[in-house]
């Protein structure tokens, strides 16, 4: 297991480097100058701009700039946001917990829906329930998150007036009331992301259970007289869920995409909405840092999935 862990960690490093190269290449290829804003500002003379360019090393060759940028990123020196007037790392650390909370909760919701539905559908393939679940899953991942979000706002905030549709961090209530208010405002974003995720995970679970349920050891378990419930929960599901871990991790980039949209709809102060507002405000350091953070999170979750995979299925670690 230890060796496997080390190997996985070593594999993650080149992909992180690769991602950083792609991001930096995009930035370096882009026309325009990060200090263009300053050029139009009459209060800043051209000499200051030239000095700033030399200070930030913008005239150096690209590989040198890449190494310097990477070193700065690795040390947590992500630059200064010109719009928010604060360091980028403080800004991102303020926003990150909200995003992780919404994503985490929606993942839990997705698994809570997908696993029972997928397993039940797979134990009765081509039954009415299976076909219904399959069709609903298709509908679920064909509905874009921005449309589901608007639909939920329309129904639950405007017609029924049950839930607030703007996410607030400054809730003044205390104690239980505070938790209640938080839950209420987080309900719709979590539902939007969770249902979207649940739709695709359900299909994975179903396919995976169908693969396992035909194996000989399941027949053996039945033959020795175990009840159907025990066979399914103890023998089939535990093995069927192993590949699902990887598939959920592979979905991570899509989940972050969905989170950006959801945060924008419900005005959640997470890093997704920070990304959009920074793009609209031309705040390049924040845009670069947020993109890099999201990429790192994807690699991190893939790594976690690999490790969990090795723990669930010990055969993998010996390969």
């Amino acid at each position: 297991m230890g060796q496997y862990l080390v190997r996985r960690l070593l594999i993650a490093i080149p992909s992180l480097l690769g991602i950083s190269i792609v991001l930096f290449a995009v930035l370096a290829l882009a026309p325009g100058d990060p200090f263009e804003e300053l050029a139009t500002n009459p209060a800043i003379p051209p000499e200051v701009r030239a000095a700033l360019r030399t200070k930030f090393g913008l005239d150096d060759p690209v590989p040198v700039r890449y190494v310097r940028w990477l070193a700065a990123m690795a040390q947590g020196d992500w630059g200064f946001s010109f719009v928010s007037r604060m360091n980028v790392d403080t800004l991102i650390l303020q926003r990150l917990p909200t995003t992780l909370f919404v994503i985490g909760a929606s993942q839990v919701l997705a698994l809570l829906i997908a696993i029972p539905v997928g397993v039940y559908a797979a134990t009765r393939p081509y039954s009415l329930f299976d076909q219904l679940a399959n069709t609903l899953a298709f509908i679920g991942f064909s509905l874009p998150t921005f449309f589901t979000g608007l639909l939920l706002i329309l129904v639950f905030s405007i017609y029924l007036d049950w839930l607030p549709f703007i996410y607030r961090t400054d809730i003044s209530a205390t104690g239980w009331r505070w938790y209640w208010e938080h839950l209420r405002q987080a309900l719709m974003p979590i539902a939007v992301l969770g249902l979207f995720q649940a739709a695709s995970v359900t299909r994975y679970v179903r396919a995976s259970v169908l693969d396992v349920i035909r194996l000989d050891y399941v027949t053996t378990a039945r033959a020795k007289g175990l009840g159907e419930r025990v066979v399914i929960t103890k023998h089939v599901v535990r093995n069927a869920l192993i590949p699902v871990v990887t598939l959920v991790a592979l979905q991570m980039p899509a989940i972050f995409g969905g989170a950006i949209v959801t945060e924008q709809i419900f005005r959640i102060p997470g890093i997704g909405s920070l990304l959009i507002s920074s793009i609209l405000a031309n705040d390049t350091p924040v845009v670069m840092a947020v993109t890099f953070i999201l990429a790192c999170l994807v690699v991190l979750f893939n790594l976690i999935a690999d490790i969990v995979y090795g723990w669930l299925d010990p055969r993998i670690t010996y390969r």
Partner: protein
Amino acid sequence: MVGSIPASLTAEAVAARRRRARTFSPWLEAWRRFRRHPLAVVSGAILLAIVLAILLGPWLWGHPINAIDFTARLQSPSWQHPLGTDDLGQDLLARLLYGGRISLAVGLAAMVVAILFGTIIGAVAGISRGWVGSALMWLADLFLSLPQLPLLLLVIYLFRDSLKNAFGPEGGVFILIVIVIGGLRWMPVARLVRAQFLSLREKEFVEAARALGASRTRLVIRHILPNALGPVIVAGTIDVAAAIIAESTLSFLGLGFPPDIPTWGRVLFDAKDYLDIAPHWALFPGAAIFLTVLSINFIGDGLRDALDPRKVM
């Protein structure tokens, strides 16, 4: 799911004989199998209707897309405006019909880019032995772990202005969106093509062609590629849907096409602040995106069954 349908030998033999009695055209066979999937056939009809509507609609429905009429602001559907109007009194039906052209064109063009990249890279990786293949697949894995939407936003943020200057506001954004969406979706296609190539290149018919002295290019283009196309077609169908969603998402975030081009996502973006007084404004474009994507996905599902010769039907 091959084994999940209990098919007795005799039933299969009868079916096979009946098949032999008819025709051998693989496309006719695929169509016959496609018809077994009722939802896919219905989806095909719906998609055909949508495509016809957006191709012919702007001629039949004479309303201009940008005629501003302040006396008819935010009207609900009526005979004069079947889908209602927006905050400037512009006719929504006309705007949606026009915007649909853009959305579908982006979807199709991005799919072509993705398939082209994916097939070329997958074919090279599949036919070459040694480090080239593994390097290309490492690249594909790397791209798969990139967060697509943030990267899409980043590229559009950085390159939008210069392309706008080079190709005009519409052309520049169109090219950028198509290339970026297509360029971020080639990986699944490349992996599919490579997997197909790895198994096909060891098959006897390829061996025979090689023994007859066919060059490597001829082997790939005439013998291996046509046999690898089934999964690629399915992936291409799904890619159209994904590209339409990606374009709508960008437009919905206000970072896609300029405001005067009413793509479906853009109309939704404009409509989202009027949900309480004019819900129809958001519902119709959303429903259009949803219906298009859903029917394309169902068609993909039908094609998956139809183009897989090993699947028992």
